[in-house]
């Protein structure tokens, strides 16, 4: 069974189809990248899979069950978490609290124990906190938990979003341009982090313009253009594809 299966997906904004009859699968335990020129529909695809947008046609299945059209807060329950291209950090909270929100569903959320401070509630809170601290450690933000999120530099915000998404304990993690705006050293760290995440058995779907990163980590690559699938396969298979070169990679792809 595929982890994610997208079939005949269509999303129109007015007359214009941002995603047009798109089908692909993501196998469990792999790192799959989605590349394509600006406006190809990569972020729109993430929004459709994560439930922030509803498709006009087509199906999205996760671990064999259909999740098409489910609201975002239900999609995450089935095991899909994501980050955002334009960072969506909770700037009004601390770094640790950001990650703890990621663990929202695992926390004890019964109103009465919360309001009356019943003892059982605090064990759950402690677990949630400890897990968040461990995740901060994992993404390289150890010791920064008590800082307000708006005091972090941009590179750290990208990691914070990854830690927060991991706190939701996903089976599929979707990363929308995690290396955008990062310097080469920071990008290398993201590379390592993605491989560590995959090594723990989490399937990764990566949207990224940094081809060095894509080439390094991806098991498979899907090339998107104007909402349609242009090609799919390993790096070696797609990089000489004339259509892919013309639409996106240019001469640069050939030479790598």
């Amino acid at each position, binding site marked *: 069974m595929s982890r994610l299966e997208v079939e005949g997906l269509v999303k129109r904004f007015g007359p214009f189809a941002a995603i047009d009859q798109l089908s692909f699968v993501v196998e469990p335990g792999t790192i799959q990248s989605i590349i394509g020129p600006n406006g190809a529909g990569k972020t729109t695809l993430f929004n459709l899979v994560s439930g922030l947008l509803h498709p006009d046609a087509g199906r999205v299945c996760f671990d064999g069950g259909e999740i098409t059209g489910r609201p975002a*807060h239900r999609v995450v*329950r089935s095991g899909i978490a994501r980050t955002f291209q334009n960072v*969506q950090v*909770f700037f009004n*909270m601390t770094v640790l609290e950001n990650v*703890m*929100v990621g663990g929202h569903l695992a926390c004890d*959320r019964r109103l009465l124990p*919360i309001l009356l401070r019943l003892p059982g509630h605090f064990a759950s809170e402690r677990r949630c906190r400890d897990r968040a601290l461990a995740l901060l450690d994992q993404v390289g933000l150890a010791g920064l938990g008590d800082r307000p999120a708006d005091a972090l530099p941009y590179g750290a915000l990208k990691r914070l979003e990854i830690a*927060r998404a991991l706190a939701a304990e996903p089976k599929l993690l979707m990363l929308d341009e995690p290396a955008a705006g990062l310097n080469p050293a920071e990008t290398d760290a993201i590379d390592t982090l993605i491989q560590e995440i995959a090594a723990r058995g989490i399937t990764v779907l990566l949207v990224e313009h940094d081809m060095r990163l894509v080439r390094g980590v991806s098991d498979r690559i899907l090339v998107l253009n104007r909402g349609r699938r242009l090609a799919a396969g390993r790096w070696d298979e797609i990089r000489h594809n004339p259509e892919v070169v013309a639409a996106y990679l240019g001469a640069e792809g050939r030479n790598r």
Partner: protein
Amino acid sequence: MSAGQSAGLGLLAVILAALPFVLDNPYHFEIAILVCLNATVCVGLNLLIGYAGQISLGHAGFFALGGYASAILTLSYDWPPLGALAAGALGVAVLAHVVARPILQLKGHYLAMGTLGLGVIISIALNREVELTGGPDGTIVPPFSVLGWMPFESLEWYAITAGLMFVTVWLSLNLIGSPIGRALRALHGSEVAAETLGVNTASHKNLLFVASAVLAAVCGSLYAHFSGFITPTEGAFHHSIELVTMVVLGGMASVFGAVVGAALLTIAPQVLTVFHDYESIVFGAVLMGMMIVLPRGLVPGLVRLVQSVGFGR
């Protein structure tokens, strides 16, 4: 609850317990009681505005509906005051729940307009339904009693309202530090991110809207009985603005800020009467000055100041 919050709660308890020994006439008690009622409304409103980031310019409407429910049910239908209070709260809960879903889909300025409209509708209804409400002149409200027991003098009123405020503060602090409180602040920060992490943002906003509306209604009921009179001005736009000003002045996303803001804005007009004709001008100038010096509001601003002086290594 953080150490600072626990300390604040302790300080609040001490102040509330000590006040009856300091207040020496009914007029002082009256102001203290009004402070407690306003503070209770504002703590609820601050959860909605300051923490969850959802502005409401219509909460005075809920306050007035609570007051009128108490007035009408006790006066014309002989209900016991507690029953009328509960019925008013329940009615407001239903109303708030019904309007919450469509209204809270709006954001920013549009939400402000939506809640403003709601408040205006309530206010117009209270003015026009003369047979029921007495119209613009208002209506008298019978004295409060609990199960037939009714020795409600200044001290009893103070005990009730101070107790209600303290409990509200305590419950709010517990909520803020919990997963639900984090979810509320998260949806303020980024609604889409909160959704993708499993927070049902619509139901969280609705819950808070209803809870803060009910709190306002209960305070409205108590206010009506306490003052023995209620007019549609309690539900007017002006009163909603006053409540929001208390929240902003005291400090957004600060439970104690709401209490301090309510206290200041309730007491200040009484003190400023010494300026006679210039009262409003001085009042406005002081408000502007405070917001310029401490733009985050009094309590968060002062906490920051103390921290930077105390721990500024």
